[in-house]
């Protein structure tokens, strides 16, 4: 039983390897590594569809290097070790030339060693905590300085906020973001007792106590705001409780970094009008390229009601960068693409251009939007120019002196400018 099975397994795996090898002659394969089941399916499935759409559009334009693109979709099922296994399968068995995927920090951390070992490419489309720069990974989402800090600046200058609640889900992105924000706020002269930090577990659904804490923290006579790094699923009950408890945006505004159009589609946005979110893209962006993108998306998905969001734009940018870099390099070979992609500039959906920087992060505009009754955002403030993604935060002790530059001759993800050596402090 066991042998037949092992043989079958090996044979099956090898068969697929060989088929993969044969097919690679005609097509260029692109891996899509997003959870289609489990807790993260709620966010990631949309990105899988977005990738399929982008690949289809590219094929309509004649493909890449004269070949058609072929998407290989797998389901890592929101299971972090499975992400590593599936990444390996995509690269080794299916011979993909680049992978677009992952959402949570832990899934990215899980696949990192695989991409490093097998020297392939990963485009990671979600805003994240920073403190990382890896040769094989391209971070097309926002680093903390492209989202959190401008948002806090806005609240401080425009709304006159003096008291801060930093509420987040207990994992690394909120922890780091709050750490950076805390240091930043203190540098701006905010007192210790004017900052309240609160962490909740994933999928927290009973927000009564915390909302009432926010309410009483906000009644100390100073203008108060909530900076929310609460993760996707827990947001709906949080905002419902907030709306019901009568906390209006005019009194205590909430600025969120993980709430986009997609999350708002799951609740009645009417009581939330005026609460804020900081992103690099809103569906409401009034540009021709965005209108085209939305139209293509609606046609592809067959539903006029589906929204677009920031991580989708990140994939749009990342995919176009990859296409351009491959054309520039004339090959899909990972090393050649890594060399070619730095400096590649492609249009983003908000009317400007995003450029891949040597630290494998990209330039982006930062937008602050207010929630509207229809679940869309209205941009109330934006940076005058583009902000360069900062892999290592200037506000954390361990990473102040670190920079990343993947161009020769430095070619280092954690170069210490103080000691002049590659490899941390």
């Amino acid at each position, binding site marked *: 039983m066991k042998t037949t099975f092992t043989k079958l397994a090996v044979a099956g795996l090898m068969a697929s390897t060989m088929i993969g090898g044969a097919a690679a002659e005609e097509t260029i394969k692109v891996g899509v590594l997003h959870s*289609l*089941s*489990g*807790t993260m*399916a*709620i*966010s990631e*499935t*949309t990105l899988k569809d977005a990738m399929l759409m982008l690949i289809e559009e590219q094929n309509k334009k004649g493909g890449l290097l004269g070949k058609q693109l072929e998407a290989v979709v797998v389901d890592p099922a929101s299971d972090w070790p499975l992400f590593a296994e599936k990444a390996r399968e995509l690269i080794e068995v299916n011979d993909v030339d680049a992978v677009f995927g992952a959402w949570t920090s832990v899934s990215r951390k899980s696949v990192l060693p695989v991409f490093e070992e097998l020297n392939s490419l990963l485009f990671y489309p979600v805003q994240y905590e920073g403190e990382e720069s890896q040769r094989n990974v391209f971070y097309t989402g926002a680093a903390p300085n492209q989202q959190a800090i401008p948002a806090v600046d806005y609240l401080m200058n*425009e*709304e006159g906020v003096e008291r801060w609640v930093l509420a987040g889900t*207990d994992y690394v992105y909120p922890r780091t973001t709050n750490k950076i924000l805390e240091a930043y706020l203190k540098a701006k002269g905010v007192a210790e007792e004017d900052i309240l930090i*609160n*962490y*909740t*577990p994933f*999928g*927290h*659904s*009973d927000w*009564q*106590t*915390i909302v*009432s*804490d926010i*309410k*009483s923290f*906000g*009644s*100390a*006579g100073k203008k108060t705001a909530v900076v929310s790094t609460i993760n996707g*699923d827990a947001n*709906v*009950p949080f905002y*419902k*409780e907030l*709306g*019901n*408890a*009568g906390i209006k*945006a*005019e*009194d205590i*505004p909430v600025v969120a970094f993980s709430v986009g159009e*997609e*999350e708002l*589609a*799951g*609740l*009645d946005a009417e*009581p939330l*009008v*005026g609460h*804020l979110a900081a992103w690099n893209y809103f569906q409401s962006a009034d540009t021709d390229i965005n209108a085209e993108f939305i139209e293509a998306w609606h046609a592809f998905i067959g539903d006029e009601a589906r929204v677009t969001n920031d991580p989708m734009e990140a994939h749009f940018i990342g995919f176009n960068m990859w296409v351009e870099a491959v054309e520039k390099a004339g090959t899909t070979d990972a090393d050649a693409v890594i060399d070619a992609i730095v400096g590649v500039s492609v249009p983003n959906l908000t009317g400007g251009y995003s450029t891949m920087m040597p630290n494998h992060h990209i330039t982006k505009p930062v937008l602050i939007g*207010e929630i*509207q*009754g229809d679940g869309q955002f*209205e941009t*109330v403030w934006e940076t005058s120019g583009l902000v360069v993604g900062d892999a290592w935060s200037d506000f954390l002790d361990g990473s102040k002196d670190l920079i990343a530059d993947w161009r020769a001759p430095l070619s280092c993800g954690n170069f210490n400018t103080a000691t002049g050596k590659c490899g941390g402090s």
Partner: protein
Amino acid sequence: MSLVRTFILLFGLIAGFSVNIAIAQTDPESLRPLVNELAKGKYAETEKQIGALVATGDPAVAPALEALGAGVLFYRKSDGSVFITEKAGKTYKLTDPLTLEAKGEAGKREVKKIKVNNKLRRVIRAALGSLTLMAPDPEVRKTAAEAVFKARDPDSIEALDIALASETDESVQLIMEQARAAAVLNSDMDEAQKINAIETLSEMGNRDALSLLINVQSSSEGVVRDAATIAVEKIEKSIAAWDSAQNIWYGLSLGSVLLLAAIGLAITFGVMGVINMAHGEMVMIGAYTTFVVQELIRTSAPGLFEYSLFIALPLAFLASGLVGIAIERGVIRWLYGRPLETLLATWGISLILQQAVRSIFGPTNREVGNPDWMSGAFELGQMTITYNRMWIIVFAMLVFAGLMLVLKKTSFGLNTRAVTQNRRMAASMGIRTPWVDALTFGLGSGIAGIAGVALSQIDNVSPNLGQGYIIDSFMVVVFGGVGNLWGTLVGAMTLGVVNKFLEPYAGAVLGKIFVLVFIILFIQKRPRGLFALKGRAVEA
């Protein structure tokens, strides 16, 4: 803000001279240029223009300001004239902001929204407050007074005095006095006035008053400061007492959510002995039924939206109940007497149901709206009670009572109890046991379905909905004692209250861990749960 203050002061003067604001009414057309100004410039300019409008002191500008605050004030790109709009399909219906006459329709691209942000909304709220203090509708006056309270603007004192003089409604009068007190504390009036104001606020006694008083305490000196300190202490003491009450309320509310989630399981698992891992998915089906009902109502009969939950309840019961009966007939009836294998099969079923929902409705959250009577909150003493939580507690109790009635007072309930206690003997007495099994499982699943209707009001409606509740449900049933509905009730409420009392001290995560450890230890002490069944049935 200072600019607005000046304008409000101006307005106050005008109002002061004219006794009745209505007299200040001018020809609407003279206001039009000012209103059309709103379409120009950025937020800072808009703020000035709002000030200019308020300075006219003319209540006729109120609709335009209200529309601006609500984000429905647009301007026509061709001539820059401003309209209140209402979305009608692909076009907008236009209304004149001054005369309130219909002005035809305009396409999406012909008009553009006048942007507002939080700051502008605050300015508008304060401005509207002063403008509508004398409105004929007491509700409008109440909101106006509340807005003035929040603005704490000393310049509104005069307007408030005038309004107070003619106010007849007592509750509005009270709020106006509080608003006046807040404004007085922010002004440079004499100490006696301020101490009076502190007393008014001290009687008000809520967090808003506290926040004001703390400000006074830190910014003033002498007698005023002492009075404020005494008032702050008094309010803090009363709030602390109310906090415990609030915690109990939160606990009961969490408990009733747990009860709703677990009570269906108390039947399928507790009474029938099926380790029903698909229980959460029955809740999910109920929530999705609510979504479908609301969708249908939205497209075909928007007027029924307020009743959507009542329509959804029986449908959710039927939907989940029928799926439950299908599961019982198709799978579980082959597994009686092998309880552990029901775990396996129902786990498989739960995966299938989750994926089915994901395939049909998509993986993203679905919007289930709260009807008006489920939204908002009211104050009870210093406690804020949200309507949705209150109705969920009531609903949970009704479901529990209803279920008790069915099991104890109907012949179906008698049959159920007979079959679960001694299947063979029940069969010998002529009870059609397979029939009873199917219906009981259907009942448990149906109850889970109506729990789903309630939970859709406070939680995500997504394919993962059920997964979030399944573990907690099992904990509640086991903690309360398998096979005892009262145990489930007491268990759910205990866990809810304990959790909520731990949360402020330990935080949400540690609080939950402590509750789990508490359950583990409790089961050591009472290995059969809170309300253990006695007798030989226990060994089975």
